[in-house]
């Protein structure tokens, strides 16, 4: 079965578009690849090798499985940049602060409270929330509102899988996410830089779009603390600040949640924060981006970060300049 990454994949369960063999774990997979050299399994192996190269990793703890975004594999941003350049104000406002200051953060054990308008509220251990059989690797573009961008191989599960198990009721129209509040482990939280804890939200249809992912790893490894361990959101068609990190609470609500950056500066940051080259930030143009580590802001930014085919329908008829 061929995977065409250009085709819309929305509403196709990932188990149907990902061949069986790529679900094998890495050791089994390598054996299979060696045995079947030159056959159909070559492709995931090439992907794994390319990613390993980009990651600059010598050991084999790197994904062999990529179900989405393979066309981006040669553009993947190096591991040292993905894990060394982060906006995670809980650990400081400088891009290098998180890598420096997140060392003593304890991402395990971890539990997530699911609450609000749903049939299965409760406290869930991370292991119960993220089922191993559902884990996939996907390479997504990542666009920060500050105009830099990366290409990142994430590992995680579709958010919709978790949402469907929580079984939201008819009253649920939005999903609200909250970051952990641990000032003793997160030095940035001791200063009033932002109103802690960090809050984000999605409309329910956005949250159940197949692109929305609950991420536990990057480059096939567990998330480093500075990248939002142990559990973060990735919504690749939105600016990076929507992709909330170190999630401890998922609430199903009726009203649109007030996300942290909108609360801070409502004229600069909205609820939707969809990547859009035509809607500028008050202080800079969003028309182009800097694909790090390039020094040049010369890549044309795409509507919905290049994922218009998969997500555009959710915003049909909406004034994107008003709902920024």
């Amino acid at each position, binding site marked *: 079965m061929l995977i065409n990454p250009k085709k819309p994949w929305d509403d196709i369960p990932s188990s149907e578009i990902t061949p069986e063999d790529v679900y094998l774990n890495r050791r089994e997979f390598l054996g299979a690849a060696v045995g079947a050299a030159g056959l159909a399994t070559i492709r995931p192996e090439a992907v794994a090798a390319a990613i390993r190269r980009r990651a600059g990793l010598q050991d084999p703890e790197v994904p062999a499985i990529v179900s989405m975004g393979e066309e981006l594999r040669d553009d993947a941003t190096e591991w040292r*940049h993905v894990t060394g350049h982060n906006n995670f104000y809980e650990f400081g406002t400088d891009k290098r602060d998180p890598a420096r200051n997140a060392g003593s953060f304890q991402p395990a054990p971890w539990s997530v409270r699911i609450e609000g308008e749903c049939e299965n509220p409760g406290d869930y251990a991370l292991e119960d929330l993220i089922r191993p059989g559902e884990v996939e690797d996907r390479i997504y573009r990542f666009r920060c509102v500050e105009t830099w961008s990366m290409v990142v191989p994430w590992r995680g599960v579709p958010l919709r899988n978790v949402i469907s198990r929580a079984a939201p009721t008819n009253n649920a129209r939005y999903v609200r996410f909250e970051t952990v509040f641990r000032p003793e482990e997160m030095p940035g939280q001791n200063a009033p830089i932002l109103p802690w804890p960090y809050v984000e939200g999605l409309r329910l249809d956005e949250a159940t779009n197949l692109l929305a992912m609950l991420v536990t790893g990057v480059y096939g490894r567990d998330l480093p603390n500075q990248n939002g361990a142990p559990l973060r959101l990735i919504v690749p068609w939105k600016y990076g600040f929507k992709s909330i990190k170190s999630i401890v609470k998922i609430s199903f609500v009726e009203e649109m949640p007030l996300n942290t950056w909108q609360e801070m500066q409502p004229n600069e940051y909205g609820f939707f924060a969809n990547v859009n080259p035509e809607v500028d930030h008050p202080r800079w143009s969003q028309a182009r981006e*800097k694909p*790090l580590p390039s020094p040049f802001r010369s890549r044309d930014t795409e509507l919905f970060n290049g994922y218009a085919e998969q997500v555009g329908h959710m915003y049909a008829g909406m004034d994107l300049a008003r709902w920024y």
Partner: protein
Amino acid sequence: MNAKRQLLLVRLVAWAGAAAPLLWMIYRIFLGEGLGADPTAELTHWSGFTATTLLVVGLAITPVRRITGWNSIQKVRRMIGLWAFFYATIHVAVYAALDQALALDFILEDVLTRPFTLVGAAAFLLLIPLAVTSTRGWIRRLGKNWVRLHWLVYPAAVLAVLHYELGQKTDFTRAPVTMAVVLAALLGARVWLAMRKRAAASARGTRARPSEG
């Protein structure tokens, strides 16, 4: 220490202080760990911060001299101003050549439509004539007007600090505010010194200079 050697020492210290950020950056690029994932941002912040700091330091010299009577430091004011202009030029060049990749249409749109960049550009434009006329020849040629022209360093510094403040995402409370407070104190000191001088002058006028005799 005689006056000549003291002046030489002050010059040396000022020169080393102003050149240190440049040497540090060269070290980081060529010998250190490099500039990380976003070298353009790193260079922009480094050059903008250094330029603004040196502008403020340059403005501190006259009040400090008046208050301490340490006259030799006056001689390095021009040099510090020129270093500030040097870093400001790197800042603008990094913005145009790297950040904007020399796309003129984007540069114009950005600078003309957004207060943050407009204020920065205004600061830079004010600094250009000051740098150009900083030579001995120009000082001689302009005479009294030189002092008048170089008064522009005050609005330039105010604009630079305002630009710094406008560029902040959340951190309104730290470095930019510190810089603004220091600048305001320096401006206040200048005004206070000018008022004291005027008061002293008028006192001398009415009391027929009793102390001079």
